[in-house]
């Protein structure tokens, strides 16, 4: 930078910031819309799930034991709560999976049976069993740090896939594929 000179910056230099900025916008647009797998992988994937026994959350169906899940056929284990908003968002997708014949087990975290009943009435009820995880211990043991999270667990009780956050409509085929892989 020769400050003594009085010559103006060349015309292209004046446009340079704009050109660089357009490059930045192009780059982040690609980054934003590229379907990237942002999920945080749990170290538990590929390992057997921890053993647990949860009491029934509702009087009309049994609670959930790890032995129920490791029963020879793949299961979907959904960690949810009536007070969780993304859980409402994913309910239709769980319903669709249940209608497709998927065995779905629920773990309801810190909930009351009345609130749970209301939630299921309003949003549909895809669960075979629902275990009440009142202190969140089982949730933590499964390596889950929030609701909703959903696990694909094969017939031997090995965790094959962990889905963090709500299941969106575009995730359903992927979940079905994971279940198919788990049954082989």
């Amino acid at each position: 930078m020769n400050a003594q000179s009085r010559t103006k910056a060349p015309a292209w230099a004046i446009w340079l910031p704009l050109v660089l900025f357009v490059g930045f916008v192009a780059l982040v647009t690609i980054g934003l819309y590229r379907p990237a797998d942002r999920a945080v992988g749990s170290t538990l994937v590929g390992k057997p799930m921890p053993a647990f026994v949860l009491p029934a959350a509702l009087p009309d169906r049994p609670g959930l034991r790890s032995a129920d899940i490791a029963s020879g056929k793949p299961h979907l284990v959904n960690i949810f709560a009536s007070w969780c908003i993304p859980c409402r968002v994913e309910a239709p997708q769980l319903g669709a999976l249940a209608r497709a014949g998927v065995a779905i087990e629920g773990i309801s975290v810190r909930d009351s049976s009345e609130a749970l009943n209301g939630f299921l009435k309003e949003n549909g009820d895809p669960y075979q069993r629902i275990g009440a995880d009142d202190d969140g211990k089982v949730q933590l043991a499964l390596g889950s740090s929030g609701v909703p999270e959903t696990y694909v667990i094969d017939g031997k009780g090995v965790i094959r896939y962990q889905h963090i956050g709500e299941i969106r409509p575009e995730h359903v085929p992927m979940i079905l594929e994971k279940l198919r892989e788990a049954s082989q």
Partner: protein
Amino acid sequence: MTAELGLAALWLAAALAGLQLLAGALALAGRGTSLAGIVRPVAVVQGVLALVAFLCLIAVFAETDLSVKLVAMNSHSLKPLVFKIAGAWGNHEGSMLLWVTVMGMAGGVVALVERRLPEPTILATLAGQAFVSLGFYAFLLIASNPFERLFPVPEEGNGLNPLLQDLGLAFHPPTLYLGYVGLSVAFSFAIGALVTRQVGPAFARAMRPWVLGAWIFLTLGITAGSYWAYYELGWGGWWFWDPVENASLMPWLAATALLHSVSVLAARDALRAWTVMLGVVAFSMSMIGTFLVRSGILTSVHAFAVDPQRGSFILALLAINIGGALTLFALRAGTVTEGERFALVSREGALVFNNVMLSAILGIVLFGTLYPLVAEAMGAKVSVGPPYFNPMGALFAVPMLVVLAIGPMLRWRRDSFPRIGRQLVIPAMLVGAGLIAMVAIGGVGILPTLGFALALGLGWASVLPLKGRNLRRTPLPVWGMVIAHFGIAVSLLGMSCESAFSVEKLVAIKTGDATGVGPWQIKLDAVQPMAGPNWTALEARLLVRYGDHGKVVQIDPQSRSFWAPPQQTSESALLTRWNGQLYAVLGGEADDGRWQLRLWWKPFVPLIWLGGVLIALGGLLALIGRVASDLRRIFAREKIAYRRGRMADLERAQSEDPS
């Protein structure tokens, strides 16, 4: 009810921002000059309404109104009140509302007090401010309504990330936001000046307090954020070159450059286009930083924290605002008339050099932050860390620090090194002594060695501008400059010592056993459970002693478990002495009843943040000095105007007097 009131205020504020933009633009276009009169009052009312909306949000958080979706998602009835209130801005929607509130209020203040600039420039500035605000209002009202209701009402809220349940952090984001938004005012001034082609000392003086204010808040925000990461994350480090940290550093670098070029423009009427450019860049960095953090494009956080729709919205705002401003700059910069000339060896020359160095560091940080994205676009996953940032940054930081030591002694326009050469002898000798000392100690890396030596030299040189001055009559801005530059030396000394002399130890010991780190003797006395309002913890009682004869002091690091939402954090224990800090973290329990302890002795590490505070203090003194002299000038002008008016009245009265 409170939520609806807030939403109504928000809609009204948005509508007024639209009116402000429209009236300002029409008045500038020469149509409806009567509209020009409403722009200032509208800007003031818009700011007040935004404030009302924000206060409503704080109210619903304070009473934990779980029928408001945002409260249910981010708060919990068991949380302490101060964190309930902090929860109002500890989330995406609330922080965006805080953003528009501060921006609206800043616009209101400009409308109320700024009378130095030609009226068209003010109209363009306020219209620009309204344009930027309008984008954020639209974002809030369309894509992230903070007042949305939820039915049925949940029994309990989801809680707030326990890492964020910390007093320092509760006030850290708003501090940074004040900085970001202050830069938006500088941005609007730059737009206003480009529209009317009025770039000159008056423009620089109008813009300077806002840049200074923003820069002070950014400095404090970065300092506090760094200290938070240091004691809360429990990793012993104070800067990780994490995208979120870089997002706050980049606006600071740009604002630092802008601050100095604005001074050149105000004092010497030089660097016109460059200052306007930096005004645009500084706010652009704020927006880009916000985008990078909010869109989740760089940090792979929990999947449901990432919302592509939100990311797209901020990206669109960014593209319109910054793209528009840069286009305007490219079209107008050629027609902004040239500023004054100056020699290479002069105060201006040094400031220009450091502006270029700061911009280069900014470019390096920006490139390093974005590089993972570039790589990902080409199909590779990489992360960029200290091995890139430290040496690349130092490449430009070292010459910048040398010029920083010399520059303040140079005269404006033209100077020569022989004139100031004698004053530089002692700083140069200090640098040499520092280098020799570090080499003699041995085993110290090249960056800490350079940093240590430069810190000594700069520390001495930074106070030289006071030499030969009457200290009582020295203007506050000069004091500010000296203290801020001295703060850089202090901070640099802390960084170098931390890097060169830290001692780390990881041990597993039983209760009753002793260990040591650096000069400290440490005994694990007991480990006991503790309970807080929304957490439980294991707390270790450590009895520590400095040297063989020091007093025994107790420190208590904790391993905390929060239950809403469930999360583990480690609360490190810090013991500060004049020459450093002892840092202890409690890890897990091993099978045989032994406890993991992580211990550090970090000599002079507090200087890093003390330096940060000094830098901000320097900025504050300069701001007070500038505002005070501005006010004095305004009062003097009004007095003169008043006297003239009186004289005219008297003369008229005399001439009209028939006697």
